[in-house]
């Protein structure tokens, strides 16, 4: 008995080795390097080299310089996540309970956008939302937009782009959760005097919470750090933190500031996620 237990324990560790090695090499080492870079003396450059001076003021500098895009990123990410949740929940519910034999086809359609590049799809949104495009023209026609109103270079375009690009990441975990709900539980709630509305909030919604939590995390985290949508669909007024970090690295060659900003973003997201998961009461997900 104890022999088999010991054996099973050893197998577990053996199975961990490839993943641990991979993460050590490509996650822990770069993370260490990132944190180290954020503390370098900013007077250096990538040609002359940096010296490690534990320059903590890098952090206060980037916060005072870039707090606006940071807050904007969190707000855009949160709004996109909310829209994804509403759209995605309805879609996932319909696929799980109402699609019948079309279920698999609809799931394929949900992931179909991944067959084309993220960049190309966002570029086509630029065409769709263009100033003389049919969407802007129609909105002008019904006077939702003024005669010189536009969509490109507005928060609407950026948030819509984020919502579109991350919707599948919301739908799939939601579908997995909702599909697992035994329809007899909904029948039981109806038998016990719950009308469809009450039944949804007392039975379906709580049982789908694991999907809601993983879907919102899978949407919110990449959406906050995204820079493609803001770059292509927005203007400098819609700059998100991803664009700032990207240009600090590639244009300004300010590695310490870019590193400090990345560490701040990561720390913020980790803290928010921990708080959120605590509140949702699904610690067992982590």
């Amino acid at each position, binding site marked *: 008995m104890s022999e088999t237990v010991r054996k099973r324990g050893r197998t577990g560790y053996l199975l961990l080795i490839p993943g641990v090695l991979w993460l050590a090499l490509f996650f822990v080492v770069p993370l260490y390097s990132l944190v180290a870079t954020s503390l370098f003396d900013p007077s250096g450059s990538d040609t002359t080299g940096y010296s490690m001076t534990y320059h903590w003021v890098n952090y206060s500098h980037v916060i005072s310089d870039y707090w606006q895009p940071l807050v904007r990123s969190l707000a855009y990410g949160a709004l996109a996540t909310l829209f994804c949740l509403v759209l995605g929940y309805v879609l996932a519910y319909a696929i799980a309970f109402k699609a019948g034999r079309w279920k698999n086809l609809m799931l394929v359609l949900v992931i179909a956008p991944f067959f084309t590049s993220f960049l190309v799809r966002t570029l086509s949104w630029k065409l769709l939302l263009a100033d003389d495009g049919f969407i802007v023209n129609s909105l002008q026609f019904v006077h939702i937009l003024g005669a010189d109103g536009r969509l490109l270079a507005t928060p609407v375009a950026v948030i819509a782009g984020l919502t579109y690009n991350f919707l599948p990441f919301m739908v799939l975990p939601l579908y997995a959760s909702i599909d697992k709900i035994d329809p*007899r539980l909904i029948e039981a709630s109806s038998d016990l005097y*719950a009308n469809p509305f009450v039944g949804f909030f007392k039975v379906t919604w709580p049982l789908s919470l694991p999907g809601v939590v993983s879907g919102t995390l899978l949407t919110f985290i990449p959406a906050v750090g995204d820079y493609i949508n803001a770059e292509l669909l927005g203007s400098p007024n819609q700059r998100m933190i991803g664009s700032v970090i990207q240009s600090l690295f590639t244009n300004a060659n300010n590695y310490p500031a870019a590193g400090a900003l990345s560490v701040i973003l990561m720390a913020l997201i980790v803290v928010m996620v921990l708080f959120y998961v605590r509140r949702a009461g699904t610690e067992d997900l982590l």
Partner: protein
Amino acid sequence: MSQVAEQEPTTADAESYDGLRLRNVTKSFGAFKAVDDLDLDVPSGSFIALLGPSGCGKTTTLRMVAGLETPTAGSITLGGQDITYAKPYQRPVNTVFQSYALFPHLDIYENVAFGLRRRKSKEVDTAVRDMLELVELTSQARKKPAQLSGGQQQRVALARALINKPEVLLLDEPLGALDLKLRRSMQLEIKRIQTEVGLTFVHVTHDQEEAMTMADTVAVMNAGVVEQMGAPADLYENPQSTFVANFLGQSNLIEGTIQNRGGDVVTVDMHGIGVSVPTERCHADSDKGWVGIRPEKVLIGAPGEELDAPGNTIPGGVVTDVSFVGVSTQYLVRMPWGQELSVFQQNTGRHTSFVPGDKVELSWRPEYAFLLDFSQDASAGAQKVDAE
């Protein structure tokens, strides 16, 4: 066909009937008629079992009463009120589901409280505590359903439905998932609770023993209709169709030609042997019929032996199989016309045992025999050996 429990008149109009009444109820799924023009009356306060093989329409009937299916035609009334098209959450009916369907995210207390909370009841706490006490689960109140055993989950499901004091409680194969021993004790438990609370119970099952143990009235269903309805003993002793004769226990059905229908008894020529059957147990209209006799009513003896059964004696049998099952010995006896009859002999120690190849005589008292219509299939409803 109309089947009515106890003494309720068929023609009384729905307005004055205080129980559950189904009239001409049909439910089709595409071309398949799951329930076919069904009439059923369940008097208030009774315990009725719908018994039949899988696919006979018993669960569909139950789901229509619960409101989870809408009848294709016909009407359902409860206490004079038409509930045919009422939403499930609007009818005073609760269900104990086959797989219990307990809410996995709520604890036992909240599962039981669910119906009362939806109806904004004031006395939730007292009612839930009383109900948990009734089903002996007070100590489990704060556990989640998954932490409970199958038998305990079953009791939670019962409590969750009963606490609403429904006018009709529906039980859909509630004991199907339990092992045999637990099932027997739950049968008695549910029967006890029904007597205690005095509500109307409609119980769906494919287990004839369960139906007969628990219910006051059993309705045997087959192919979407009620074949026969009555008290368990009446159904068993005087079945009106081959389906009921075979589905409830076992029967020997022997082809016979009716010779005389006069008076109290019908006389039948059964392969050259004259037997008689009481007129009130004759359910055959044509000249031919199936003479039915339960295996435990058949006596077996050596040729010429004095058997305690004046009346129907059939000579010329040969024992072909003997199985000893403890309380009784079960014989198969090949008759001169080629048919094998089943005989159960109680092991009282007073009878000789036979071995395969022995010549024997069979006999039974005429009052135990019944006569069924020849147009029916003699093997209808016969259970496979491994049915349980």
